[in-house]
């Protein structure tokens, strides 16, 4: 090996550094949510290593919360897996948006990157890709640093759970509060607000008439369609991106 730092390794280091700097707020956000998840999972009867294994293999906050509450309610594996699929189908849409910026990236790197697509890393990476000054090194760093924080904080919650009484600190409300926080960050214009209101109303109606968790996918696909149509009617001259 030659000890002279090559330009490639310098670029790699800079990319990792930029990724870590950008990932910091996401990691900070994962800590309270991960702790809350760990405590709830411990109450549902999971061991810290089982919690860590789920965080490592699944790495999807909302689905993990829902799975654990279903486990506590005595649900079977098949219905938990189907619900996980319905809840995480949204990543399909996020992955499609990211794909636009990832031409020319090697297939195995794309496959690794896919593992780390979460609501938070998606929002961060997409906004950076749009600026043009972002690459696969930075994006992978964001995903994996936040993944590490997620695993560690959920396991810490699993250990702490034993010492925290049922319902303390409003931990049962961590999941809705996380959705509120994520939503608030994305309401950057009228069309997002209109779509969110439409989706919320449709979801409540569908939740009362459709079986299982399919109201989530049904309401969001319809509401986004409604959002596109309303937006086109309001600004018919606006060209596509």
């Amino acid at each position, binding site marked *: 090996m030659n000890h002279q730092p090559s330009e490639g390794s310098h670029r790699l280091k800079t990319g990792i550094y930029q990724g870590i700097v950008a990932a910091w707020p996401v990691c900070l956000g994962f800590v309270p949510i991960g702790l809350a998840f760990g405590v709830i999972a411990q109450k549902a009867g999971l061991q810290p290593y089982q919690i860590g294994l789920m965080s490592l293999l699944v790495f999807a906050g909302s689905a993990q919360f829902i799975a654990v509450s279903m486990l506590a309610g005595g649900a079977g*594996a098949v219905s938990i897996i189907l619900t996980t699929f319905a809840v995480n189908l949204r990543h399909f849409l996020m992955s499609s948006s990211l794909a636009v910026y990832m031409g020319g990236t090697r297939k195995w790197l794309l496959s690794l990157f896919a593992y780390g697509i979460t609501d938070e890393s998606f929002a961060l990476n997409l906004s950076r890709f749009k600026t043009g000054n972002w690459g696969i090194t930075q994006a992978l760093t964001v995903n994996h640093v936040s993944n590490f924080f997620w695993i560690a904080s959920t396991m810490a919650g699993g250990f702490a759970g034993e010492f925290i009484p049922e319902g303390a600190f409003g931990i049962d409300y961590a999941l809705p509060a996380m959705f509120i*926080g994520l*939503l608030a960050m994305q309401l950057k214009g009228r069309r997002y607000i209109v779509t969110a209101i439409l989706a919320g109303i449709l979801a409540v109606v569908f939740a009362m008439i459709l079986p299982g968790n399919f109201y989530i996918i049904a309401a969001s696909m319809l509401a986004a369609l409604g959002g596109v149509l309303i937006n086109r009617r309001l600004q018919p001259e606006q060209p596509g991106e």
Partner: protein
Amino acid sequence: MSELNYIWLILGMSLVTYIPRWLPLAALAGRRLPGWLLEWLDLIPVAILASLLLPLMVIPDATGQLDPLSSEFLAGTITIIFALKVKSLSGTVIVGMLVYWLISSLV
């Protein structure tokens, strides 16, 4: 649930989570998508979050009954106002938990 069943459960969960994350990247990377599809995709995250959230706030007990004056709804309303003013994810989670804790201990 037994140890072995738990392993199968999380393997199943990880598979159904990974495939939708991977498929578009593997199939579409670098392709130009039509404008209307991009507009639709752009609205999807907001729509999903709202569809996850609102039922939790107004149908709190999974009974299928609307209950707009529950602790969940009151805490949610306060948390939304906080979140819109202070755009911080962890701050919102902490405030939401504390407000809900306070309201549900008073009710």
